[in-house]
């Protein structure tokens, strides 16, 4: 089911959280809302869920063409996974997952045995078989996260919304769970929108990335597009390391560390190169990072493969020629 967001604004008192934001989330896609804190991404997600309501005005939210702006959260059919999971502390895992089904009106409520079956099915889906009797405080962070996901899926939502799904997890679990979610999404094909402030997460996981800043959408596109063809300096800087140059007339240009080549100073070509001295060298990992200092005192970061670095045999203090279409 696709989600269309039309011209949504939201103010809290005098603070503008969203300003006329419009966005299309295609059916079956995995879309990331990416931005720094305070950019409005979580507010947008909560408005889609019906946990927050947009300011009066022309703004509306459509699910598959149908206006749901006036539909309360409980009737929207959204699965929402909270940043800190919001699991019901006093209920077991199974009771948590079955909650949404057990509160359906009597006429639509499945029988207890059907609920049990569905809970079991979901536990298998999120790979938590056998933990149904546990309580939330007896689970690890990653397990809680998956219980929250199963609970959201139990009501067979039309769309899945996740607020900083990996924010509260440590780095390793985060990486595993990220990969797992990607595969999981491919299997169930549910339109999914998630919020993150981690650019690596957004780029690795999503089909579509929405970069937000100061209550507005800055750019929408595939991870490749966003990374390679940023529309604005903000997007450039927000997605990974970048070297920033300001020419004498004040124009700014950007170049990513991996887009710069390093050659021996003897091969210096004044039309494309600049001379620099290596200040720092970090090579513990597959990619080596050099920090070099240009003749005008500016520092530039460069990323090379380890092999390249080894072939060049460089060390701190060496003079090199760096090659790219650098501003002179």
């Amino acid at each position, binding site marked *: 089911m696709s989600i269309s967001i039309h011209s949504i604004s939201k103010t809290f008192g005098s603070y503008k959280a969203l300003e006329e934001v419009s966005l299309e989330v295609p059916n079956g896609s995995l879309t990331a809302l990416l931005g720094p804190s305070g950019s409005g991404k979580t507010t947008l997600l909560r408005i889609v*869920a*019906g*946990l927050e309501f947009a300011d009066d005005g022309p703004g509306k939210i459509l699910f598959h063409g149908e206006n749901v702006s006036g539909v*309360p*959260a*409980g*009737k*929207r059919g*959204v*699965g*929402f996974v*909270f940043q*800190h*999971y*919001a*699991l*019901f*502390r*006093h*209920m077991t895992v199974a009771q948590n997952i079955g*909650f*949404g089904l057990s*509160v*359906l009106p009597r006429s639509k409520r499945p029988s207890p045995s059907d609920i049990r079956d569905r809970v079991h099915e979901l536990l298998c889906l999120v790979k938590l078989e056998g933990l149904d009797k546990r*309580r*939330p*405080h007896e689970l690890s962070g990653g397990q809680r996260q998956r219980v929250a996901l199963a*609970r*959201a899926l*139990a*009501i067979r939502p039309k769309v899945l919304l996740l607020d900083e799904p990996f924010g509260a997890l440590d780095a390793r679990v985060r990486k595993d769970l990220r990969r797992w979610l990607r595969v999981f999404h491919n299997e169930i094909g549910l339109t999914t929108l998630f919020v993150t402030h981690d650019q690596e997460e957004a780029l690795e996981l999503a089909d579509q990335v929405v970069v937000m800043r100061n209550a507005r959408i800055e750019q929408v596109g595939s991870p490749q597009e966003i990374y390679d063809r940023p529309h604005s300096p903000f997007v450039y800087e927000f997605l990974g390391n970048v070297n920033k140059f300001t020419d004498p007339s004040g124009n700014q240009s950007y170049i990513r560390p991996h887009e710069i080549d390093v050659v021996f100073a003897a091969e210096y070509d004044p039309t494309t190169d600049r001379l620099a001295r290596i200040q720092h060298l970090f090579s513990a990992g597959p990619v080596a990072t050099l920090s070099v200092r240009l003749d005008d005192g500016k520092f530039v970061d460069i990323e090379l493969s380890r092999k390249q670095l080894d072939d060049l045999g460089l060390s701190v203090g060496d003079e090199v020629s760096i090659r790219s279409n650098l501003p002179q």
Partner: protein
Amino acid sequence: MANLQATTESKPVRALLIGLALIVLSLFLFLPLLAVFAEALRRGWEVFFASLTEDAARSAIKLTLLTAGIAVPLNTLFGLSAAWLVTKYRFKGRAFLISLIDLPFAVSPVIAGLVWIMIFGAKGWLPPSRMTELLAPLAALAAQAASNESIGGLFEGAAAWLADPKIVFAVPGIIIATVFVTFPFVARELIPLMESQGSDQEEAAVTLGAGGWRIFWRVTLPNIKWGLLYGVLLCNARAMGEFGAVSVVSGHIRGQTNTLPLHIEVLYNEYQFSAAFACATLLALLALLTLGLKSVVEQLSGPPQN
């Protein structure tokens, strides 16, 4: 030997401080508690039990139970409603509302009684004569119902009160004064607790399709039950032990409008010390029970945190 530890005192200093604290606590806490029981039993068990079972004592116990039985549920309902309101929603005047809830803490119990005399007393807004007028139609109805042969018995009490609707210097006054004094206890316990728990779980329940009552019963209440219980206990202890406010509105009619604390005062002023302290043991035991249950509640509500 010099004190090598950076963040604690040397042994003698520690012992001295603990000793001083123990002295303070004994003088203020243990000695009074001991004294209640010692004084109560000074003239033997027989006098002790006789003081508790005489008619005036019994009716005082009954009235105390009745008062708490009405004031505590009312204020529990209010506490839940107020805590829900100020922790689940943000609205204009919210902070002001919270300070209004605390207001009775800053009001002397004597004034808590006085305010009702300003309303229902002879020179108040609704003096007994005016109440009689206002309630006349109801009184007529009740009198009619009471004269009915089959169900009349049920309405006799109501009819009798409505014919002479006294509030202050009568039982209703004692009850409303107690309601005033015990007003904030449950809300005070619940507001910080519910504030710290946030609304995440309730919101999750909303997205899963649960309605208001269901969210309250199945999500909120299980999370706050121990705090609620503790608030109710405190509210009850105060309701049963309130003295100043009820003393102002009671009119001190022995056997009719005396709660246990008022009965104690009467006995004390009549120099029946042993009897006064015998009744005081009941309230002291109630206080100890409240404190004991508090510790239990704290232990129970301690461990499972998300």
